[in-house]
C-alpha cells in the first residue's frame, strides 16, 4: 500500500531526530499505526512514568488530525477511562501544518498542565477542582502503579 510522502517524511524524522522523552514507532504491517511512549514531565504527578499510547493516521490525514489514545491507565481530567484525550489541537484547532511530533509534544504538555475546566473525565475534574492536593496524590499513585516500567505486565 502506497504511503503518502508526508507520512514517510514524518516517520523518518521521528526515527532520526526523536523528541526527548517521546517515541513513536510504526507497526510493520500498518505504517499508519504507531506505538507511542511519552515520559511524564518532571515537576508533575506523572514524573518518572512512561505512558503508552497508540496513534493512527486516518485516510484523510493531514486534512484530519491523527487519532490517538492512552493505553496506560492515567488519572488526568482530560483523559477518559478508555484513554481518549480532550485536546483542542486534536479537534477543532487541528491544522495540517501540525504534525505527529507537535501533537505528541502537546500531549506531554497537557500532562504538565491539566485543564479541569474542559474535562473529559468529570469525576476526575471534580476532584481536581475541589481538592487539588488529593487529585495530585492520586495521579502520583496511579503513575507509580500503572506507568512504572518494572510494574508493567508486558
Amino acid at each position: 500500500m502506497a504511503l503518502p510522502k508526508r507520512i514517510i517524511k514524518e516517520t523518518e524524522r521521528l526515527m532520526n531526530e526523536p523528541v526527548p522523552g517521546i517515541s513513536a514507532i510504526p507497526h510493520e504491517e500498518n505504517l499508519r499505526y504507531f506505538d507511542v511512549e511519552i515520559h511524564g514531565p518532571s515537576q508533575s504527578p506523572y514524573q518518572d512514568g512512561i505512558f503508552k499510547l497508540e496513534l493512527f493516521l486516518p485516510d484523510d490525514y493531514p486534512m484530519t488530525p491523527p487519532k490517538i489514545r492512552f493505553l496506560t491507565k492515567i488519572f488526568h481530567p482530560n483523559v477518559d477511562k478508555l484513554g481518549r484525550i480532550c485536546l483542542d489541537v486534536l479537534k477543532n484547532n487541528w491544522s495540517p501544518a501540525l504534525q505527529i511530533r507537535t501533537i505528541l509534544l502537546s500531549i506531554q504538555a497537557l500532562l504538565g498542565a491539566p485543564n479541569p475546566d474542559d474535562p473529559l473525565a468529570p469525576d476526575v475534574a471534580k476532584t481536581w477542582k475541589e481538592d487539588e492536593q488529593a487529585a495530585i496524590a492520586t495521579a502520583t499513585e496511579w503513575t507509580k502503579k500503572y506507568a512504572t516500567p518494572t510494574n508493567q505486565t508486558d
Partner: protein
Amino acid sequence: MAVAQVPRNFKLLAELEKGEKGMGAGACSYGLEDPEDIFMTHWRGTIWGPPHGNHENRIYELKMECGDNYPQEPPTIHFVSQINLPGVSTVDGEVDPNAVAILRDWTKISAELSTNPRSKEDLLSLETALISIRRYMEENKKLPQPPEGSKYPMYD
C-alpha cells in the same frame, strides 16, 4: 487508491461512539460491558424483537466478544435472554456463526475488503452483526418462545 487499514482498537472506538450516540438503526443497541475495558473486548447488545410474530414487544439481551483479530474475525456472540432459534445453543445461548449470514461470511467479506476496500461503508461491525441476527429472528418469528425475560442459567 489504497485505503488505510483501521486498527482494531480505533475501529472499536468508532463503533462505541456510534453506539453511544444512538446513530444506529434503532432496532438494536450495543455498548461496552465494562466502561473501563481498555481493549474493548466484552460488549453487551440488545435486539428489539421484530414485529408480527412471537418476538414482538420482547427485548433480547446478548453478549459479544471481540478477540484480538477482530474485525478480521467475527465477534463471538451469545444470547443472554433465552430464545428458541435454530443454531442458538439451548445450553448457553451461543450463536452458531453458520446460522447467521454475516457471521458465516465474515472472514470472506473481510478478506475481500482488505484487497478492495470501500472506506465509507462499515459492512462488518457489531451493529451489522446484531441487525443480521434480528433478520434471522424475523425469518423464524413463528417458532414458540420461552417465557419472556428468562435467561440462560449462567446469566441468571
